[in-house]
């Protein structure tokens, strides 16, 4: 899954478009979602899905799978929202169901805005946006190193797991716990080995205390997209205002 998202974020049609625009757009949509009626939220969700699937060409199958897995949390909480203890028995709560339905639309809408951002924007660009937004340098450095070694350690863990299975490991509960523990300890060992290697490697390249990123490079967002954002945003806002004036609840 992780490699999938990472690969898509680099290989989609919008990957080189301005990350600042994309972040701003997704953030604006999430804010609007919080302030608007379900009908507007549904419209936002569809619009963001269109950006991701149609404009960025993220495969619809993968998109839906991710949307589904993202909604698992909602499914898990659904019983708690929809059921009430009343007079010592469980019962469906009318208002709970109503809350759940409203919540679902909002959460799905926010999720689709998030998915737009993470499926179309490479991590490195997000770092640069954070840098431009003046996130602490130390935090950025930690994140850089973490991201750099994430995939490496995931690969190592996967190989170790495969090797254990190839030798008959991960049989029952006890063996799985013990094998996982051995793997984690060994992985920690490798992690510290990586750290030592990295500190030598960086020292040889003149590391003197900080890891500096390239400054944010402004990138373009084609006019056609900017127009759509402006027009679509105005439409949604208008829609919301109409609903409010109409007193619709």
């Amino acid at each position, binding site marked *: 899954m992780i*490699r999938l998202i990472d*690969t898509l974020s680099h290989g989609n049609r919008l990957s080189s478009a301005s990350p600042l625009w994309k972040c701003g757009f997704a953030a604006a949509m999430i804010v609007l979602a919080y302030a608007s009626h379900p009908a507007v939220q549904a419209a936002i969700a569809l619009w963001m899905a269109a950006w991701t699937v149609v404009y960025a060409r993220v495969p619809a199958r993968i998109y839906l799978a991710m949307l589904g897995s993202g909604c698992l949390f909602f499914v898990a909480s659904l019983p708690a929202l929809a059921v009430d203890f009343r007079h010592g028995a469980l019962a469906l709560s009318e208002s709970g169901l109503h809350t759940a339905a409203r919540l679902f639309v909002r959460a799905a809408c926010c999720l689709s805005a998030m998915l737009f951002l993470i499926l179309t924007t490479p991590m490195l660009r997000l770092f640069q946006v954070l840098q431009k937004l003046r996130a602490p340098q130390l935090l950025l450095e930690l994140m850089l190193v973490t991201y750099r070694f994430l995939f490496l350690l995931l690969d190592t863990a996967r190989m170790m797991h495969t090797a254990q299975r190839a030798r008959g490991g991960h049989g029952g509960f006890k063996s799985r716990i013990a094998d996982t523990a051995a*793997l984690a300890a060994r992985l920690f060992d490798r992690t510290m080995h990586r750290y030592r290697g990295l500190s030598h490697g960086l020292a040889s390249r003149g590391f003197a205390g900080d890891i500096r990123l390239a400054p944010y490079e402004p990138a373009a967002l084609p006019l056609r997209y900017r127009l759509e954002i402006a027009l679509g945003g105005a439409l949604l806002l208008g829609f919301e205002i109409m609903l409010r004036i109409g007193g619709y609840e």
Partner: protein
Amino acid sequence: MKAIMETEDVRYRYPGIGEEALSGLSMQIPEGRKVAICGANGCGKSTLFLHAIGILRPTSGRVKWRGQPVGYDRASLGALRRRVGLVFQDPEHQLILNTPREDISYGLRNLGLAEAEIRERADRIVEKMGLADLAGLPTHHLSLGQKKRVALAGVLALKPELLLLDEATAYLDRRSERALLAELDDACRRGVTVAMATHDMNVAYSWADWVLVMDKGRCAMAGPPHEVFSREEEIQALGLELPLLYEVWKAMPEELRAGFESPRSLEAFKEALNPV
């Protein structure tokens, strides 16, 4: 020629990656041979091995063990992995436990053997492979060559019928390489079929008695070393190099070569030039 393991039109694509890692691979590993599986980095060798022990499952096509399609239920996989031993490229991934002896026992313990038998079998293989001095040392004190030998010992202790090795000789100096290859020859003599993936054509040429060449997830060539390497242009078209010894031999004046098959080792080469 009976195949101990074969694949029929196997296709596999890693999730999220555009290209197929195996794109219609059909190949056979002949029983009782020393097989070299050659190809450039990324030709699909490692993916093939993961299919051979049922860790990966083909998207389409079939993997067969002794003529029978491999099953993917728990019991069949267990049985398959007892018969097929896989030695990974990087022993760091394979050696999990703290000392060679413990690590060698790991697979035996997973077989559910009694402790006494585990100890007995581990001791025997430690003895046989000359690891006695190392058996109690912490794994991270061993050299790469030693680690590779320990990884091999851990797999041989399970007495596989087919032994697969991924880039077994990479990163080794010549002495460690020789020790390892001698171990493989020995296993082969005891009836184990040995298949080694390598991109070192010199090793493939001098060690194997059957060569498979893979390219872009397919089997491009198969046959005895002389036959495969005599198709020089095809080999080069695949971006592979001919074995040095083979090239040198071909460069020699015709009259010196007359009557000899191209020698596969330096000793054979010297003998061919200086007949006693």
